[in-house]
């Protein structure tokens, strides 16, 4: 009996978590000027609006550009650092790991203010490369967490075997360790990409006139409420869900292939 009640409660809670996102789909398909539920008439009007309006398209393209840039920076920097942290033995390893992961938990508004102050001094406001590096800081924790945990569970005898068979340390790393890390790096780069793609607060502070997709959504929400945002949000949800499912698939496949 208790179990049954608990089950009912569980179902309600899952609905509470998931349903608001699902309900966005019919709302975005309205043909009317206003957000309404249920929509009186279905149409793709607001999806068309999204792709016709240059400000939406440009914001999306900028977000992709910044996201890809930040992901590449975070991936290279994070993977190198993970190798050093897991394999090396130097004082302050744990502290360094904690600092690299810190942007994940430190309130973003603090970092936004901090970057805003130095960017103004350096005249970095309104610059795409600066935004890429700022986003890389936020994306870095995902790479460090996932790649260093994959490295920790890697059986180093494989690499030593390659060394015994005559490969140099660099070659052993590239032909044995890197293929093992590949899926984790891929999964972490997807997470890193979304960390940048969804980033709002830092961008609001330091981007000047640049509009990424979240900033474009934000300005729309603060000023008015038309269903283009609903259409944009639906597409973002689909992209996030598919992207994360792919990341999870690769991570699990690696766990299965090499054991955990």
């Amino acid at each position: 009996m208790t179990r049954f009640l608990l089950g009912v409660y569980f179902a309600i809670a899952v609905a509470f978590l998931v349903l608001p996102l699902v309900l966005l789909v019919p709302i975005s398909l309205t043909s009317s000027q206003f957000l309404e539920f249920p929509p009186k008439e279905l149409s793709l009007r607001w999806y068309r609006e999204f792709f016709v309006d240059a400000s939406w398209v440009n914001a999306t393209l900028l977000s992709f550009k910044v996201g890809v840039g930040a992901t590449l920076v975070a991936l290279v920097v994070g993977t190198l650092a993970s190798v050093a942290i897991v394999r090396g033995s130097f004082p302050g390893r744990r502290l360094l790991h904690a600092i690299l992961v810190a942007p994940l938990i430190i309130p973003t508004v603090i970092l936004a203010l901090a970057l805003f102050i130095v960017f103004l001094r350096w005249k970095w406001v309104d610059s795409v490369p600066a935004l890429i590096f700022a986003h890389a800081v936020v994306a870095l924790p995902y790479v460090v967490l996932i790649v260093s945990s994959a490295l920790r569970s890697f059986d180093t005898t494989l690499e030593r075997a390659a060394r015994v068979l005559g490969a140099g340390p660099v070659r052993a790393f590239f032909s044995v360790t890197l293929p093992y890390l590949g899926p984790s790096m891929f999964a972490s780069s997807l997470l890193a990409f979304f960390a940048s793609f969804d980033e709002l607060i830092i961008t609001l502070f330091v981007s000047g006139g640049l509009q990424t997709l979240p900033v474009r959504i934000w300005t729309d929400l603060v000023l008015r409420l038309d269903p283009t945002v609903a259409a944009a949000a639906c597409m973002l949800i689909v992209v996030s869900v598919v992207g994360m499912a792919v990341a999870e698939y690769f991570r699990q496949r690696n766990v299965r292939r090499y054991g955990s």
Partner: protein
Amino acid sequence: MSRRRSFQLALLLGPAVALVGLLFLFPLFGVMKQSLFSPGFTLESFAKLVNSPVAAIVMRRTFVLALTVTALCCVLGYPLAYFLATMSKRWRAFFLYLILLPFWISVLIRTYTWMVLLGREGLVNNALMGLGITDGPVQMLFTGFAVHLAMVQILLPIVILTCFASMVEIDPQLVRAARTLGATPFKAFARVFFPMSIGGAAAGAIICFILSLGFYVTPALLGGRRNIMLANLIDFEVHQTLNWSFASALALVLLAATLVLLGLFRLVAPERRLHG
């Protein structure tokens, strides 16, 4: 060999140290400097912080909100995690996926869905009027209620997952042993299961509390002017009153609170949880 080792290490760590040093640690020091020097050392902005009634109200409100949201998430999340931990493996994977799903979507979008649902013509108001519970639309947007509701929905998965992670580690044999030895189901739960799962719940609560303290988007969009939180006040001081020193002092308070809570987290959470 040793020199080569340190050269390799510098090569591996150099980029990370440069990136995080230049764009994370150095700017944080900048905030500290901004709040304490102008240009000589001064405690002016902290004095202002202590004396400002607005700052006091906002800090208190933020603290109370974070506490309420955390308490709600724990009370709601613990039984959910328990149910999840005790169901069959296949269903568990499916529901874990469902619970993780909203977690992957940005806070901006998840807040937006509540703007749509809670608006005057939104689904909730239409349902309330359709069922005859209310005559006219109820004001839900731009209230504390909306902020609480959305924040619980956004943060609940985190608490569920941390509770769940510590619960699946518990050997079910132990509870069974307690039952065999004559404990009632409730007593077996209270004396065996609960004490073993409380560490994970505490860790989840702390993470939830830290994240709540820094919430910016949800209070701004759902709370309106009367529900401004600390993060929004920092933004306001930067962009509206242009008082960066005061904003920096506020940010330092938020940072200090976060660091204290992280220290607490390390005390309650098992080591491996922090280091993967």
